[in-house]
């Protein structure tokens, strides 16, 4: 396994000045575009990107405008992992060396629609880094609930009203589902902790074979948050314990951040239009679910 110590560190000071995702039409303050931009800067010029339908492809490829500065392709919605696997195999067959293939897919495109192809990609151990930017709903089609939409979220398919308090399910355990494939490297991250995200992309870059990063990426438009708070809110989610930072490597889980005290869940929720309607009982339900998860993680992942 690649040792972190052997990998040259990448940070704001030494990263390439080239931009590989530039002039895109994402909403102002889009967190997904921070994730894509930073990952591409870490991966460098010799990168093939594959993006299924979703915001990042919709804002990146508007023919004849092209916001990607390295090779990039839009894939079928369910097939990004298989198309990326094909790209990696094709480049290898052409004798290309020193390149990386990456997928940027949304939460819907990963946890629901693209899941079968992703599972196959990991099973075959194709040389692809799969990055899921999680904005917690199908944003590009107007905010529908996905398997990663958290409890209480108001979406157009789970409206909050007298019958239901918005979304009535909790997020899928995507990271653990991926780890259960016994993947070489998987991690969770948040754009609220950008250096941690960069380190994880950098680590995955140096692993041969299938790797996976689940990055929490705010969406001011779909979440009802001011554009300037996109990074703050993604950090708040981690500090409130609703998003955790962890890695899976060599068959072991590792919890990267284990705060003694969590920040207020209620404050985090009330900052966002999508949670504004939530009652005290609903907030309690979110907290109880968080605590159950942390009890399990602390017992097994430390």
């Amino acid at each position, binding site marked *: 396994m690649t040792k972190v110590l052997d990998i040259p560190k990448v940070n*704001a000071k030494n990263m390439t*000045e080239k931009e*590989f995702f530039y002039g895109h039409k994402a909403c*102002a303050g889009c967190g997904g*575009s921070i994730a894509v931009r930073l990952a591409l800067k870490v991966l460098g010029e010799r990168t093939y990107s594959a993006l299924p339908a979703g915001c990042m492809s919709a804002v990146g490829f508007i023919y004849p405008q092209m*916001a990607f500065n390295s090779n990039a392709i839009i894939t079928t919605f369910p097939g990004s992992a298989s198309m990326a696997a094909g790209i990696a195999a094709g480049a290898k067959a052409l004798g290309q060396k020193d390149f990386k293939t990456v997928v940027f897919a949304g939460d819907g495109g990963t946890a629901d629609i693209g899941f079968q192809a992703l599972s196959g990609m990991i099973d075959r151990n194709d040389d692809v880094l799969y990055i899921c930017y999680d904005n917690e709903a199908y944003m590009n089609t107007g905010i529908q609930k996905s398997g990663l939409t958290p409890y209480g979220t108001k979406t157009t398919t789970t409206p909050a009203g007298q019958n239901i308090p918005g979304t009535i399910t909790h997020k899928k355990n995507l990271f653990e589902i991926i780890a259960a494939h016994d993947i070489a490297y998987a991690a969770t991250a948040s754009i609220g902790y950008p250096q941690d995200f960069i380190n994880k992309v950098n680590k995955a870059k140096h692993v041969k074979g299938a790797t996976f990063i689940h990055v929490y990426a705010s969406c001011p438009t779909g979440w009802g948050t001011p*554009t300037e708070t996109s990074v703050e809110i993604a950090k708040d989610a981690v500090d409130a314990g609703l998003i955790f930072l962890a890695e899976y490597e060599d068959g072991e889980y590792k919890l990267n951040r284990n705060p003694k005290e969590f920040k207020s869940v209620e404050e985090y929720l009330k900052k966002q239009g999508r949670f504004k309607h939530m009652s005290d009982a609903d907030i309690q339900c979110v907290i109880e679910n968080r605590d159950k998860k942390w009890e399990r993680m602390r017992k097994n992942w430390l």
Partner: protein
Amino acid sequence: MVSGKLVKRLTNDQLTNDQIIEKMSRPKHTEYKTPTHIDDYPTGPQYEAGFLPEKNAGWRTFKPVVNHDECIYCLRCYLLCPDGTIMKDNGKIKIDMDYCKGCGVCAHECPKDAIEMVKE
């Protein structure tokens, strides 16, 4: 497409537009012509499309203004700009106002409050 050769470090005021484009892969504005050969299909960033603005400056209501006396060049704004419009310029940051959308992330995240959002 831009080529990979290195650009001599000059301040951006001294750099020609082509050199800035090369340094940070900024979009090169090229007139769009209907492709007649596969080689004519767009592979670089921005063409004039006719249906969308090719520059994003028009999205802004507020623009970031940097106070260089307060800035400690920590590069947090550079790291977090969703649009990558903040450039390094010999120990100073400089913003590409053609593509900045005025989101305010840079100002909000600056540890020194060295960026102010000013109404355009």
